[in-house]
């Protein structure tokens, strides 16, 4: 088997694992904050509904965390199995955040276990809420550390290579690389946004299913408000990310925007097809690319032709970029309409068709997450460590990768179906109306 082949197969397997893992990782980072907000609102307003909301979310959350742990372990090991050359190099320079990520997750797992198994154990809800803080912090910290590793792959620094040896390694400098702030903020903000919309979709689903309980309305309104805030934050941070790219990875931005010649007054191209180096049938927003890259309409944006052909990212990442941005914009706009409408009492927010749009927000946000990660990963090609190591040179020489692809594909299919089946079954068996009634009955009777 040829060398190129294992690199391609390794990429396919990594893509599969990451694409699957990222769904769980994203909600894994975002949902603790949602639970926290709901429980906090419940305590503040002394409203049983929000407390129950937090509790029911927590129940579903454990299941996604458990699958996330499994797929996270898989990607952790696969990095060494599929990219041994890269990990050998990375181990020397960027091992510190990888190591700390495990600690952060450890911390989260411990407190998640405690949080879940101590509902109603405390007289005071506020004490129970306190346990959630380390869960949310641990989740945020693990996303911080693992994103740092990914940021390092995009803008490596903190070491020198002398005759193939690493000299002058500065682990902290490697950690604080220029890609970190925009990437970390973007990852976290989208995680919160996506989690909010996924939870909103669930509430919308129940309302479409005919339930008219105020519990679902509260859930929907709460999550859409949070979704609005974070979709706006995401858009702003996304703009900063454009500025980071223009400064440090101009080829990625240029490829995403089909921007070939270095020039000022650059327009932003949406969709279209490419004919040679000429975009056709595209929507062009004048000056927008210059603004995205440097903040002024006349600013010069570096074009793709400045880079040697074998160091250019594939041009189809344009569509990934458009998908991500398009969905992000739609979600910000739509959640704005809903929130204002719900606040002012517009009739359309109660319309049936509007609920279907609400239902779509969660899945759309997940699609945007996938598109965004594909964009950033494919957009880094041909490098695995930009400027230092190409992806093709980092792959394993083992000949069994193809078999592993089949094995893991089967696993992810089973885990994916399992998650959906178990979650729906769990909530169907114990609908909120029934649980609220049970709790009322319990309270009315003799205290336990």
């Amino acid at each position: 088997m040829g060398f190129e082949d294992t690199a391609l197969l390794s990429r396919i397997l990594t893509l599969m694992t990451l694409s699957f893992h990222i769904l769980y990782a994203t909600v894994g980072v975002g949902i603790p904050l949602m639970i926290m907000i709901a429980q906090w609102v419940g305590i503040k307003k002394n409203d049983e509904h929000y407390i129950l909301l937090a509790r029911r979310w927590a129940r579903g959350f454990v299941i996604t965390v458990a699958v996330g742990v499994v797929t996270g372990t898989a990607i952790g090991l696969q990095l060494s199995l599929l990219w041994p050359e890269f990990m050998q190099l990375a181990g020397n320079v960027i091992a510190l955040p990888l190591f700390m990520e495990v600690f952060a997750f450890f911390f989260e797992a411990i407190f998640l276990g405690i949080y879940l198994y101590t509902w109603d154990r405390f007289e005071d809800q506020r004490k129970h809420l306190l346990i959630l803080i380390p869960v949310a912090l641990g989740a945020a910290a693990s996303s911080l550390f693992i994103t740092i590793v990914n940021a390092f792959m995009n803008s490596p620094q903190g070491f020198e290579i002398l005759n193939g040896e690493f000299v002058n390694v500065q682990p902290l400098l490697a950690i604080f690389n220029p890609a970190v702030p925009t990437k970390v903020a973007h990852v976290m903000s989208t995680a919160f946004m996506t989690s909010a919309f996924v939870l909103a979709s669930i509430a919308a689903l129940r309302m479409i299913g005919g339930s008219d309980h105020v519990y679902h309305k509260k859930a929907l309104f709460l999550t859409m408000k949070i979704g609005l805030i974070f979709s706006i934050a995401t858009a702003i941070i996304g703009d900063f990310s454009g500025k980071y790219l223009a400064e440090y990875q101009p080829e990625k931005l240029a490829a995403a925007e089909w921007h070939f010649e270095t020039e000022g007054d650059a327009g932003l191209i949406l969709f279209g097809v490419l004919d040679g180096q000429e975009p056709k049938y595209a929507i062009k927003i004048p000056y927008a690319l210059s603004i995205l890259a440097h903040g002024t309409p006349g600013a010069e944006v570096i074009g793709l032709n400045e880079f040697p052909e074998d160091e250019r990212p594939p041009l189809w990442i344009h569509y990934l970029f458009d998908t991500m941005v398009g969905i992000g914009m739609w979600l910000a706009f739509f959640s704005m309409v809903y929130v204002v409408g719900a606040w002012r009492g517009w009739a359309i927010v109660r319309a049936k068709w509007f609920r279907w749009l609400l239902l779509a927000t969660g899945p759309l946000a997940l699609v945007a997450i996938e598109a965004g990660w594909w964009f950033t990963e494919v957009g880094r090609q041909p490098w695995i460590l930009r400027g230092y190591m190409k992806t093709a040179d980092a792959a394993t020489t083992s000949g069994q990768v193809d078999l592993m692809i089949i094995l893991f594909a089967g696993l992810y299919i089973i885990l994916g179906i399992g998650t959906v089946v178990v979650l729906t079954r769990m909530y169907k068996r114990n609908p909120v109306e029934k649980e609220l009634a049970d709790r009322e009955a319990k309270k009315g009777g003799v205290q336990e």
Partner: protein
Amino acid sequence: MTLEIIGISVLWLFLFLYVIVASIDFGAGFFNAYSAFTNKQHILTGIIQRYLSPVWEVTNVFFVFFFVGVIGFFPQTAFYYGTTLLVPASIALILLSIRGSYYAFATYGAKINHRGYIYMYGLSGLLLPASLSPVLAMSEGGFIKMDGDSPYLDYLALFTSPLTWSIVVLSLAAVLYISAVFLTWYASKAGDAKATHLMRKYALLWAGPTIITATGIIFELRSHNAEHYSRLLDLWWIFGLSFLLFLGTVYLLWKRRNYGWAFILLVGQFFTAFFAYGVSHYPYLLYPYLTIYDSFTNEAMAISLIIAFIAGLGLLLPSLYLLFRLFLFDKDYVKGKSDYHA
């Protein structure tokens, strides 16, 4: 003490902790499946759900910690072990997924207690040590070979070697033994006489095979890796101590008393043996290619990892204590009197 030794000691300690907590987890799953098979399910299921469900993610993290730490301290291992372990490690991952999803789907979630699932979960507990433990055999050398610049694993040599199979058998026996001793203690704390009786029986049953295969491996090393064998013999007194601790556990189990102490002695037994084995393996990570010295990371990284490790431990130990106080040492919880699951 050099940085290399601090690094490997930390990792070895974590591997040891993983061996203990994972053995409890793996073995419990197997006993659970076995009792389902013989229709005694109710005896163990409750205990397994009360103890294992809250802590399995923590168990898993010990494993992740070990392999991430190895890459951090000894990046070159990624090259040798990463390339050669693709298949065995992937199989182990699949098995781990079966276990993880069992907790997720069957105990947290919709309580799917399909028999097939229980059997798969139980069986994965046996297959996992069987798929992970051959790595120890590989590290003795002779199975990982070089094809020019790239290492490959000689499966035929590995699977026809008596050393591999003894290590596999030892891992299975040890998993069942460790787990049974722990569960004897846990069941007796929970005041469940039936389960205590059953687990004590299993513990005594697996004590013999554990010690016999462990001794057998030492002698097989003589022909496989003479250098390691002679270093092992230099440490004979530690193995002797380990054997005494083993006798202590068996004695207490036999006399039906102090199950807590029996478990502590068992941890001591495995601790001494595990470290004596580790020390005698020094300085090799992989005979004869890789030692802890030539695969070590740079000094700056090593120091920062050690600092991160100490800081992390300062955070984790109190949290772990809290976790165990709630789920292991809380009488009401252990007895199943209080259930506050979300």
